[in-house]
């Protein structure tokens, strides 16, 4: 006798966020990415439609990152020195769905690059590539409030995803995003309430809910992964139960977190018993990524091309109904 699976009925769907705009839509992208829109829990196709597969954005920097392990830099190749080349390689060779450009050079402690130079980098990357773009600031509120509005304007029409807004600093960015037709990343510190509060604050400024992506802040394997997982799970359950203020896609900065872990970075010579650092790092990032897919991640921001490939294959398998 066949076993009848118990199916949950959900009353609400996650909003669909569109990133990128084609020529017809006023942009210049060859492809656009539709994010989320799930009507049920991740990969439970019987309970609700999963109209869009999770996507992978590959993270690039405007300056060559100085804290990446050698093996990770080598995996990118010499293109790491130029954001445009790096972006192209991600698109053509690494098969990224999106580019995630982090403007680390804007930071006052880094090069404090001038605003117009940074805006030009954004434009250059857009010109060179055909896939949608995510732009991140340097993380220093004051500087970001100078830089990001200019970058937003430079990318006007391209429907980029831009971040990050936080509870203490969301107004400037929201206003830019609203004016230039982009979407926003709302970051909260692994706290479902703050995530929701920030979404309400942003939507109170008249930004539609379909233009907000939640960065719930995650931790890598061994560094709070379970906690982040449970926060995402709770938020997603609330969303599916009808809470529109939490029904947004999740973006997870998997690469950022995984490559901070000692287990990913430590050299083979330092810990021979841990095995090859090259493989270890890749697996650390890949495992962190696949775990968050199960928690409902819609956009994975990754660094190592191999890890990204593993995650992509994993998504392929999971998306088979």
């Amino acid at each position, binding site marked *: 006798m066949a076993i009848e699976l118990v199916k949950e009925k959900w009353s609400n769907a996650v909003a669909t966020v569109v990133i990128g705009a084609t020529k017809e839509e006023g942009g210049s992208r060859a492809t656009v990415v539709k994010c989320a829109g799930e009507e049920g829990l991740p990969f439970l196709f019987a309970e609700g439609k999963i109209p869009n597969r999770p996507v992978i954005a590959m993270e690039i920097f405007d300056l060559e990152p100085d804290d990446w392990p050698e093996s990770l830099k080598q995996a990118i190749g010499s293109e790491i020195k130029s954001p445009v080349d790096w972006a192209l390689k991600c698109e053509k060779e690494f098969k990224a769905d999106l580019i995630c450009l982090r403007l680390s050079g804007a930071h006052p402690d880094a090069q404090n690059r001038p605003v117009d130079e940074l805006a030009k980098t954004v434009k250059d990357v857009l010109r060179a590539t055909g896939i949608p773009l995510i732009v991140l600031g340097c993380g220093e509120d004051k500087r970001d409030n100078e830089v990001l509005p200019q970058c937003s304007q430079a990318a006007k029409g391209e429907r980029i995803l831009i971040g990050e807004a936080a*509870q*203490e600093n969301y*107004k400037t960015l929201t*206003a830019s995003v609203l004016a230039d037709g982009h979407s926003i990343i709302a970051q909260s510190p692994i*706290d*479902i*309430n*703050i995530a*929701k*509060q920030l979404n*309400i*604050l942003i939507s*109170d400024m008249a930004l539609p809910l379909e233009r907000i992506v939640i960065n719930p802040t995650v931790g890598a394997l061994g560094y709070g992964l379970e906690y982040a997982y449970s926060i995402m799970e709770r938020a997603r359950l609330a969303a599916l139960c009808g809470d529109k*203020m939490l029904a947004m896609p999740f973006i997870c900065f998997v690469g950022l977190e995984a490559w901070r872990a000692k287990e990913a970075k430590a050299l083979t010579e330092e810990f021979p018993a841990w095995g090859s650092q090259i493989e270890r790092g890749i697996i650390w990032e890949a495992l962190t990524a696949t775990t968050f897919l199960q928690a409902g991640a819609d956009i994975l921001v990754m660094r190592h091309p191999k890890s990204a490939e593993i995650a992509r294959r994993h998504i392929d398998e999971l998306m088979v109904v």
Partner: protein
Amino acid sequence: MEKFKITFFPDNKTIEVEKGKTILSAAISAGIHINSSCGGDGVCGRCKIILKKGQLVSLPTGRITAEEKKKGYHLSCLAVPQSDLEVEIPKESRLDSETIAKEDGYLLRLKGVYSESEDVAQGESILGEEIFIHSPLATKLYLDLPKPNLEDKISDLERIYRAVRSYQAIPVLQTGIANIRRLGELLRSSDWKVTVMLGKRNGTTEIVLIEPGDTSSENYGFAFDIGTTTICGQLIDVNSKKILGTKAAYNKQASFGSDVISRIIFAQEADGLEKLHHAVIDEMNIMIQELARENNIDLNDVTCCLCAGNTTMIHLLLRVDPTYIRREPYVPTANFVPVIRAAEAGIRMNPRGLLGCVPGISSYVGGDLTAGALACGMDKTDKLSMLIDIGTNGEIVLGNKDWLISCAASAGPCFEGSGVSCGVRASKGAIQRIKINPKTFEVEYATILDAAAKGICGSGYIDAIAELRRTGIIDRSGKINPGLRHPRLRQGEYGKEFVIAFKEKVGTSSDIIINEVDIENLKRAKGAIYAACSTLVRHMQLDFDELEQIFIAGGFGTYLDMPNAIFIGLLPDLAREKFVFVGNSSLVGARQILLSHEAIIDAENIARKITYFELSVEPQYMDEYVAALFFPHTDLNKFPSVQ
């Protein structure tokens, strides 16, 4: 009746007293401080005086050395004048032995930290005051005793007992040895006309004091609400039950720590407990003195005092080490404190007067809440009720006559006007109502007693936040919109601020403002209180909708805008008519207990009945708290009327 003049040195103050009163009593009437901690039992030996001129009789005591005796030393509580006197109060009797604590106190006073207490406006109490029969903690009875003769030769003490029992059926009467020692002489010198003070002490009735003459019409008591941030005292005519005056002052213990935990920690330091004890006693004594003076009342006629306070405050009041309140498993030394002599705690009134404390519930839910529940009649109603006492420690009671449960959450002192930049207590001149014009941002406000504005009190802050939010000046997280330009909006020392009243207009030394830090503090306070309510309701598997009446208590003075309190998310979004603003319910309860023995029995039952729900071990509370850190709440569905 014969009277004597007593002059005290070095004060050089003279007072006239009836024959038969002790020198200690005379000093108290004259407003002169002599140490005394046993309440006139002649055992502590701290009330020494030196007789310079005149005649007195004194009972023998082991507290005066032979050498002192030669110099004319006597214990003032045992010495009764026989003629006009001149006495000197030696240094050791003037300063408390805990000089460090006192000097600290003087220092604080000089620094202005010890501000004067001030009159507070009390709203007309809507609480049923008449539900308990009149039987005060201390009563006075005038006895015109028949003189003994050969037919009627029962002893002096029995004579008194017999007379007392002819008024009231009191099977068990007690009297201290100090009274008995003086009795024979006193009765005869006062021509058998005496006033006895009867005190209800822990199930028995004690003849606390026997005074010459008829003082029965003068019997006064104090009710105190000893809060972590604010101390509120009320003078009551015990005979007529009339309230003669109410004062409030900030609890000076705040300079040793703003919350109970930091004070418990401070109490463990050297002299810490002394300092904390003196801070509260000093403030109470100042209030007693001022209220007595303003009402022309002799401190000797203040016979009883009833205190409601949280458990830590009561420990500190009685100088009991509060250490174990803070250590697992959080057990206080005493929840039910027996009635003691007020002097034993250092309270200056009639030295034999009584001090009662409202029974507490647990380490973190004190007698103030018992008193509040009593005042609201929560133990007598069929209706499912909630009492929310908005203080430094937000305290909640939920239940009805069949069951009661309570919890406490640390909210901070800002609703009491402390810890916020322009905060003041709900007293004369405090801004308590605010309206902001949505177009011009002009502010209309009203102050207590329509006096010149001096700051903002709790109810004013509730209005301010509601109005700032309504006009879009602040967002739901309490941040001032940086895009707005207006003369009232500016960058202040502590971030962005909004000017409620300009100094030129009100004559204050600086503008009355509210800034983002204040709003953040108020947001946390309201979040803690709301989260405590919702966690408690959820714990009982109830819904806010099921509550039939909600009593709101706190030092808000005469006014609280309920719709605004709901609008900012301090109170649950329920039908407005379910809310009853009861003001300082703890003080009302303390007064009821002071005036009725019945009420103390009820209070004890309430304290025994209330189950304590510990929020700190409840993981859900933190979640509810963060969700409540938003105006009105992260879950907007909980506030359908505030969309």
